[in-house]
């Protein structure tokens, strides 16, 4: 299996705090990888470094063999790196159809066309509609996003990320805060993601993690604590200790 995404000695400091501590990590293509760790372990910071929302203090991020450390969020996205956010980042005043179409337009370089009316590229619109239908949002694609139930908004968050046809998808707590009844829907969507998309999932919910991920990394205090397969991690006493809130054991 080839590696799609890797980091080398990645460091992020905020003032005196080291949020990401010398992380060297690689993601094979087609991976179903979960990133876990206690609160404040630096999971979201790590994803922000990968997606370029935050600049790294030092170290490298490599996508498909290319050093993308200095790239903007936008360029990374166009290179096939998509993400969702822990806190919804949607367009509250638009509809799901438009939200997804925006991403497809960017992917297809159709967003600078200013004269043809919105909807005249019916191929792109149909693609957006199909994607929404696949994610069970088809019925409500003309509603105002801001007035939709939270669970559906989380789904839309994933739909928008998928619209750019990513090679690597970073899901930051996709089910966070979703009420029990709507949770299954999101899990189904995540489970049904196509194989060629490599996935990194950040999650607190161990049920979800173990059901979905084949491999895991545990972050503690910004550093990689342990890596391994689902079973290895599940049986690792150190991980248990971390999750039971015991004194943190320093890495190495």
């Amino acid at each position, binding site marked *: 299996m080839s590696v799609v995404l890797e980091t080398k000695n990645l460091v992020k400091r905020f003032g005196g705090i080291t949020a990401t501590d010398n992380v060297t990590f690689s993601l094979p293509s087609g991976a179903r990888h979960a990133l876990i760790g206690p609160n404040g372990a630096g999971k979201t910071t790590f994803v922000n470094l990968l997606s370029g929302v935050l600049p790294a203090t030092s170290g490298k991020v490599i996508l498909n063999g290319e050093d993308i450390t200095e790239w903007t969020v936008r360029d990374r996205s166009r290179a096939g790196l998509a993400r969702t956010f822990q806190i919804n980042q949607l367009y509250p005043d638009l509809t799901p159809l438009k939200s997804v179409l*925006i991403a497809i337009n960017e992917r297809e370089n159709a967003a600078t066309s200013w004269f043809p009316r919105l909807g005249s590229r019916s191929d792109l619109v149909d693609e957006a509609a199909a994607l929404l239908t696949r994610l069970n949002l088809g019925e409500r694609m003309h509603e105002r996003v801001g007035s939709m139930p939270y669970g559906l908004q989380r789904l839309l968050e994933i739909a928008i990320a998928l619209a750019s046809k990513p090679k690597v998808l970073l899901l930051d707590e996709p089910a966070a805060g979703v009420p029990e009844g709507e949770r299954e829907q999101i899990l189904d969507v995540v489970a049904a993601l196509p194989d060629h998309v490599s996935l990194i999932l950040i999650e607190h919910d161990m049920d979800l993690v173990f059901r979905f991920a084949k491999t895991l990394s545990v972050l503690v205090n910004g550093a990689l604590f342990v890596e391994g397969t689902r079973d290895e991690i599940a049986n690792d006493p150190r991980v248990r200790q971390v999750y039971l809130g015991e004194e943190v054991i320093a890495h190495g």
Partner: protein
Amino acid sequence: MSVVDKDAAAPAAASASPAAPAAKQSPSWRLLLDAKWRWYEFAFWLCAAASFWVFPRKLMLLSEIFILGLLALSIDLVLGFAGLVTLGQGAFFGIGAYAAGLMAQAGMGAAPLSDPLLGLLVAGLVAGLVGFATSFLVLRGSDLTRLMVTLGVALIVEELIVKFKDITGGSDGLQGVLSSPVLGLWSFDLFGYTAFWYSLTVTFVIFLFCRRLIHSNYGLSLLAIKGNPLRARTIGMPVNARLVSIYTIAAAIAGVSGGLLTQTTQFASPDMAAFHRSADALLILIFGGAGYLYGGLLGAVAFRVMQDFLGNITPQYWLFYVGLVLVLLVLFVRGGIIGLMMAMRDKISPRDDKDAGGRQ
């Protein structure tokens, strides 16, 4: 805009545009509906044209309203659709005013140099260039930062106009700005006939352009930036480039409106770039309702008519009542005049989706 979505949701929605290959009820068809002309839009422009016969004594005021509305429309493009606040649109207005004025002056009132349409083109180009050059200043910072940076640019432009006396006439303004007849046929007359039709036509044409712009994929991407710039970036949108482009377009439009004012009033003065010009235009836009394209025009109509009406009753204290109206409007209405109209419509025929107002 979702304002329009609501209409599309109505069962009575009209048939699809024949130009569209999309089947009825398909998602594309629904999107194409956004750009459909509504009856109230026709009504608005018909009223605008009819005002020529209804208020023959107020033609100069009406021309001024169109020009001001155009300026407010240019702010609407950046504020209402891309979410950038600016308090410096007067800079481009002033630059356009002087560009058109200098052109006309150079031609001594004769074509080709003094041709008004050529003057507008130059006004738009020059203002657009300056807009492009200064657009990089508005990409960072908070609303307050943007307000102050754009205001700063406008103040500097005004100072420059005053300083370069040899070209601009300094604080006395630029006189002797005579344009040749529009299209070689209609010269600017004392009654304001030409000024009226000229301003209305130019405003309408530019409005059509803006409307098209907004109802395109490009326009949708602007709404994305306004709605959530972080999200727009993470799906691969070149947000800064998009903002630069719309800021430049808006600057050019402001320049054209400035050029219109110079041509219809036959002079230019530094206060065309002054703070109050930018502030008035922004005020008028918020007053009318930002993010609907019509807010600036409606706001201009309402504001100027109110000012003219009150000013004739109490020339010294009209400002008090204008202030009162603003305060009441903010207290009791969301989204300016258009917000008020939509609230009234919802009251008459309530819809399920109450919050679909397109404003921020």
